[in-house]
């Protein structure tokens, strides 16, 4: 997982530069406030403060680690207690050993004054650690939110893939195929061409859907969409005893058009389900194709007594969902309704 770089994640070079700046500021303060022009003194004091800050920062970081956080409270307390005790060890033993004399030789040791100076130095460290905690916490919260969002997105993607696989496996189930093939064979033997054709249609519908489910973006080019549309037309005609219940007129040739995979068939199926469909009142379908444009209209006669299948609106909702995938093109879905007829007109101008 890629982590966002924040100002808390400085490179070693930047950390060295910031450390050097702090020591330089310590030197300036010592020079102007206390008249101390010794660089080694500023280096020793500033370096110690930086080391203490790094110690606190480390504790803060592991306090956000689930495995180690239970030890952090005790460790922080111990570290805070040890620091004032470490100060005399540094000032009177370690620094003199490496040649840095922070205390004046003529001055007597005053524990109150020493403690005050140590606390003053640690105050800067604690303020720095406080800031570090605030910003590090903020960063960790942001990271956790990002991780949760990514985990949710990953889970959603996995679920979508699983659903697609389920649809695919259901449609491509070997057993279902054998059963369909068996039905077709038996029906053919018995001379039942209706069953043969319609079961074949169901099988091809599964094939078409399987092809779409395989795609990451469910957009179909016009050729397969029209092939499936013609298959649905044949099935509907067959259901109406091969009577001329659908009249199709076409201007131009399909070429570069793309469309939602089920858009055309859903509109046609809606007309068949909710309209009055017979040879006297056929579904009128018109296609217009030109370079960069497609118009599809589907008109059906309304049932006088009203549709015996109540419309749930799911068909047109699916059509709108599919058309939303063509958002870079101008898509217009018009529904015209008069006393006798219901027309759905889809116009797509491609860009």
């Amino acid at each position: 997982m890629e982590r966002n770089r924040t100002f808390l994640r400085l490179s070693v070079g930047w950390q060295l530069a910031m450390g050097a700046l702090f020591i330089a500021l310590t030197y300036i303060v010592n020079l102007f406030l206390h008249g101390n022009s010794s660089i080694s003194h500023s280096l020793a004091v500033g370096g110690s403060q930086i080391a203490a800050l790094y110690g606190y920062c480390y504790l803060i970081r592991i306090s956000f680690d689930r495995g180690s956080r239970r030890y952090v409270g005790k460790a922080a307390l111990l570290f805070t207690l040890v620091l004032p005790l470490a100060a005399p060890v540094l000032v009177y033993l370690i620094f003199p050993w490496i040649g840095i004399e922070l205390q004046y030789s003529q001055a007597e040791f005053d524990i109150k004054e020493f403690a005050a100076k140590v606390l003053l130095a640690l105050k800067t460290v604690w303020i720095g650690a406080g800031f570090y905690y605030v910003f590090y916490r903020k960063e960790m919260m942001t990271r956790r939110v990002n991780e949760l969002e990514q985990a949710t997105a990953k889970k959603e993607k996995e679920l979508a893939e699983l659903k697609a696989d389920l649809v695919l496996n259901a449609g491509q189930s070997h057993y279902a195929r054998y059963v369909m093939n068996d039905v077709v064979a038996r029906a053919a033997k018995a001379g039942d061409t209706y069953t043969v054709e319609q079961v074949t249609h169901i099988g091809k519908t599964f094939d078409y859907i399987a092809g779409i489910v395989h795609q990451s973006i469910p957009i179909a080019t016009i050729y397969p969409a029209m092939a499936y549309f013609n298959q649905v037309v044949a099935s509907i005609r067959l259901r109406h005893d091969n009577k001329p219940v659908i009249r199709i007129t076409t201007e131009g040739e399909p070429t570069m058009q793309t469309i939602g995979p089920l858009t055309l068939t859903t509109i046609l199926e809606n007309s068949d389900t909710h309209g009055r469909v017979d040879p006297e009142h056929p579904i009128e379908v018109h296609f217009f194709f030109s370079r960069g444009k497609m118009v599809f209209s589907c008109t059906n006669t309304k049932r006088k007594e009203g549709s015996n299948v109540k419309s749930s609106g799911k068909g047109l909702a699916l059509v709108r969902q599919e058309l939303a995938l063509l958002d870079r093109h101008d898509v217009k879905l018009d529904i015209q309704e008069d006393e006798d007829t219901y027309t759905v007109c889809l116009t797509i101008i491609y860009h």
Partner: protein
Amino acid sequence: MDPIIYFVIMEDDTKTHELLFHYFKEFPNFECKGCFTSAGETRDFLLQNPVHLLVADIQLPDMNGMEMIKSLPNKPLVIFMTGHNSKKTATKSYAFDAIHYLTKPFSFGDFKEAMQRTIDRINGKPKIDNSLGEHVMFGTGAIKERVLLSEIRYIEVKGNQVTIHLANEHQVSFRQTLKEVADMLPKTYFLRVHQSYIISLWQLRKLSPTFVTFFGTDAVVPVSRSYRAELRARFQNDPSAAPAVDE
């Protein structure tokens, strides 16, 4: 009178045998020489008795139908039937130069089309009818890609890696030279416009002297000076079919 076309059926499902015999009754010039339920039996028979056509299932109990066909020294024309429909299987079947790929269940209409293609092939009719509704197999060696011509937006080559950019936003890549790819495409719909690009003329949205754009994408393909005149000439006779021209 039409010549007799001898065929063999290789299918483990006896119900499909019955269906095929029922459909073949409508084609009197097709004569069955054998009907087998295993690939081994079919192979043994075909080695002794060559036929014109093999109607073959892909998944058989003893071995894969495609592997059996691959092992034959003299391959007959093949119509595949399968209940295991997938793009991969379809692509493999087309790599066999199969006449048709029937997915179970199939109707008499599908079967009739397969028979018509068989007759056309035996009579020497070319396989590709130069229409955008045709599939073409690209690629060399084991990896082949089956692409519907109408879906091609443009084809790009980098080194010997060819990438086909499809209108449904997908891409397919394979190893082949651009010249070999160009030779497989119908000249009516496709044109080479650059040493690295072939475009589908039907997908063109805008034509400029130095580049072309396509419907449904922001992709821009450069046009070389040497191909510019031919590109323009394609649309001179049919201005209604021409894309927008940017002078």
